[in-house]
């Protein structure tokens, strides 16, 4: 009937891979913020389901981020290390995307 073992494998594989990718990217964002470069990405069209971001609000957010970065207790060296770590995390996420493409394109994995 149904192959429960292959279903379990699928479940475990999806959870671990998703958790790894999401953690890597989230850690990257955390480190980026710590290094004083909080990403401010306003919605492309003001469609965000609840919070509608106006240009003024986006500016205010950037200001808050800059202020928080200024107050950071970290030394320049620590900030640089955090930034480096952030980029390493983003690189891991990018590698995951490439692996995804590799899995999708049959010509790449010979199936």
């Amino acid at each position, binding site marked *: *009937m149904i192959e429960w073992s292959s279903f379990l494998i699928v479940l475990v594989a*999806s959870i671990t891979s998703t958790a790894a990718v999401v953690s890597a990217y989230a850690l990257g964002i955390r480190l980026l913020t710590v290094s004083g470069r909080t990403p401010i990405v306003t919605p492309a*069209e003001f469609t965000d*389901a609840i919070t509608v971001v106006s240009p003024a609000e986006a500016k205010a957010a950037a200001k808050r981020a800059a202020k928080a970065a200024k107050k950071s207790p970290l030394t320049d060296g620590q900030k640089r290390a955090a930034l480096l770590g952030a980029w390493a995390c983003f690189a891991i996420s990018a590698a995951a995307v490439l692996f995804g493409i590799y899995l*999708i394109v049959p010509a790449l994995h010979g199936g």
Partner: protein
Amino acid sequence: MELTLIVVLVIALALFFDFTNGFHDTANAMATPIATGALRPKVAVALAAVLNLIGAFLSTAVAQTISGGLIREGDDGVFITPELIFAGLLGAIVWNMVTWLLGLPSSSSHALFGGLIGAALVGFGVQAIDGSVVMSKIILPALLAPLTAGLVAYAATKLAYAITRRYDGKPDGRDGFRHAQVFSSSLVALAHGTNDAQKTMGVITLTLISVGLQPVGSAPETWVVVTCAIAIALGTYMGGWRIIKTLGTGLTDVKPAQGFASETATAATILASSHLGFALSTTQVASGSVIGSGLGRRGSKVRWRTAGRIGIGWLMTLPAAGGVGALAAVVALQLGTLGILVDTIVGAAVVGGIFLWSRRNEVSHRNVLSEVADSGRAVKIKRNPKPKKKVLS
């Protein structure tokens, strides 16, 4: 044997099914990035269309196995005729149009299977259908897909928020997830393209084989691949805005980090399922992911009423598409060529009618989320409250 009317009709109908498949499934990849504003609505559907087009050309190996063992074919079984494929496609298209009108994300593959099963039941009776295959390939996966994806997305959302949460009230940079959403949703769109256009290629090839225009077991012709790819891309570009609205805003309010978690969960689950041999429906995985991510974010609500409607839609898919397919098959088999014409005309009338009906309250890229945005403007909503540390007692 040459190209007869029925073969031409089946090919036209298959391409139209491909088209409905495209706009039905845009939402799977693009509902959440549109909802969070990671991509402009028009850009998002254009991106999905291009990726579906590319995806359709990437793999062409699966096309012969479309009936997937559901219908017993071959020497000791039944031999499917173009008339029955025609009826099955009609059932699938009508159900796809109905669910689109209602804004319900439902699996196009299941609609196709349902239509073909209904037609085969009329043509050959109950022994044509392999009940255990229906159970293990369609019904159980339909229950497992949203559960799996929901669990994965729930865990991923929890992680994403836990890692970026700041207790000092300083900016947390979660906006940055919008950039990542572009990539995660693109992966879903590409994966979709490599699967779904294949189904139509399979149907057309099956038809050509069944009338002897193509040797048994041969690969789809180039023109079949090209037209199917274009049909699904066009459909995707049309954007099923009604379904995008349901998935993007109807189930839960999606935030960037949550959207990224849910898209990654969808992509990972689909890739894992297609590579580790346990096929799951893209639509059901995507819907499950959105619900799971809604459960995983503190302070977000899941609208279970909408989720329930979607679930009922899934339950109805097989019998409804099968019913229409069976009806069309009865007419086609009883009246012959005249029946095919009657089917075509009635089918066109139903599709046209649904389209006209949809114009009464059109949902397009202009207003897909505007109602929600308007209510956001009208009601001043508090900024996210400062997270409180859990006190261990």
